């Protein structure tokens, strides 16, 4: 009898421990829902269509991930600065938000392997006569606060020792300031630059060249300790490329030469 209760107790404890160990991946599968943090102010990665529905590369990528997991996708709009609070407070499961995978940030969140890569382009107000990246020296330049290009550009302006750097909250504000002449030039991802120049909403501006920053690899992110889930994300990114879906999405939303997601001469 005593032995039996002991066995029962051990079994029930094991059962409890089993449920307590359910990780993020289990939680997502059992909840039937994948909540993605997506920035919807960042065309063509994330934006809204005429019916106010979220669309874009990141939105499709989230839907693909949800389909692979066999759950439904829920897009949670998060402006750039709110991505991490949304993750940490449990409002989202994963970030599909064009997030640069810097080492500094990786101390806080867990990154997958890169799922996209950006080249940075310089867009200038035509009145300024800026024709290249170095031509921005001494001018007032800006970018979206908290982005890879903003951090790099601010460091560059400090190095030049002349001119000003101004971060704005959204990509729309940056281009508004550029069209008004409050900014003389901006550095943004080439995809954003092309989309905004072609939209014609921002007057007399044009893309004048590339910024010589390192390629901006962006990754999916999840909580740092969710190895099971991060492992799944890595395989998912790999499969997207392997199956040709990455090329397909790139053609659909961006077009042109598909950026390589591998860095030569090193693993991962």
């Amino acid at each position, binding site marked *: 009898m005593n032995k039996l209760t002991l066995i029962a107790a051990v079994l029930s404890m094991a059962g409890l421990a089993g449920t307590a160990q359910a990780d993020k991946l289990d939680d997502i599968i059992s909840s039937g829902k994948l909540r993605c943090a997506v920035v919807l102010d960042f065309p063509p990665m994330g934006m809204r269509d005429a019916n106010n529905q979220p669309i874009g590369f990141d939105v499709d990528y989230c839907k693909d991930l949800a389909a692979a997991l066999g759950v439904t996708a829920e897009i949670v709009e998060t402006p*750039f*600065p709110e991505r*991490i*609070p949304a993750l*940490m*407070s*449990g409002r989202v499961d994963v970030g599909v938000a064009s997030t640069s995978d810097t080492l*500094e*940030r990786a*101390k*806080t*969140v867990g990154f997958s392997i890169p799922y996209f890569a950006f080249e940075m382009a310089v867009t200038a107000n035509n009145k300024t006569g800026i024709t290249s990246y170095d031509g921005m020296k001494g001018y007032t330049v*800006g970018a979206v*606060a*908290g*982005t890879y290009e*903003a*951090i790099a550009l*601010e460091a560059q302006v400090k190095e030049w020792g002349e001119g*000003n*750097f*101004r*971060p*704005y*909250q959204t990509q729309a*504000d940056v281009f*508004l*300031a550029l069209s*008004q*002449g*409050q900014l003389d030039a901006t550095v943004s991802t080439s995809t954003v630059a092309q989309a905004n120049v072609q939209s014609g909403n921002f007057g007399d501006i044009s893309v004048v060249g590339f910024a010589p920053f390192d390629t901006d690899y962006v990754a999916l992110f999840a*909580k740092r*300790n969710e190895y099971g889930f991060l492992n799944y994300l890595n395989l998912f990114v790999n499969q997207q490329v392997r199956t040709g879906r990455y090329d397909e999405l790139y053609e659909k939303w961006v077009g042109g030469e598909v950026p390589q997601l591998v860095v030569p001469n090193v693993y991962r």
Partner: protein
Amino acid sequence: MFDYTFQWKQALNRLPQMLDGALVTMEIAILSMIMGIALAIVLTLLRLSGSRPLIAIATTWVEVARNTPALFQIYMAHFGVASFGIHFSPFVSILIGITFNNAGYLAENFRGALKAIPDTQARAGRSLGLSELQSFRYIIMPQMLRISFLPMTNQMVWAILMTSLGVTVGMNTDLYGVTQDLNALTFRTFELFALAAVIFYLITKTITLGGRLIAARLFRY
């Protein structure tokens, strides 16, 4: 489940940068208060002037300042005026926006204070040979500023907090802007903003307590 490990040291390492930001925040708030008080006195005089167009100008100012979001006022001071080709730097834009807001609220405070001062005082001044402006300057205004002194410290606190809206017009040297930049760099959102909140709290608390001490010292009857 909230399973986040706080790394306070990462935030504390950035404290010197944040304190530099706090200085800029105080600079904006103090300048905007000085100009706001001056403008509020002008608005009060306009309202007392008896001239319809002048009263209309002052009333419009106060109504817009008090009944639209401060964010809107600051945004207009940067992007709004720029569509007419007038460009202000982020610092000047936020200063104009907060000053506009301060002036509107303070003018309303002054109006309340004026109601607490009996009309007979101005008339007594006039009968002693002071001009209308002189009786305002020497008799009414000192009392008005005394009565509205504590509400003014409230507005000062509000001005400090409003500086955090500067990020919408490209500020990144004030306390909030610095914090946001550091957040983008490190993603230590909770630690950095908690630290910023403590700094904001200490500044505003110092202002309210300081205001009370000054009031107790200056306004003894």
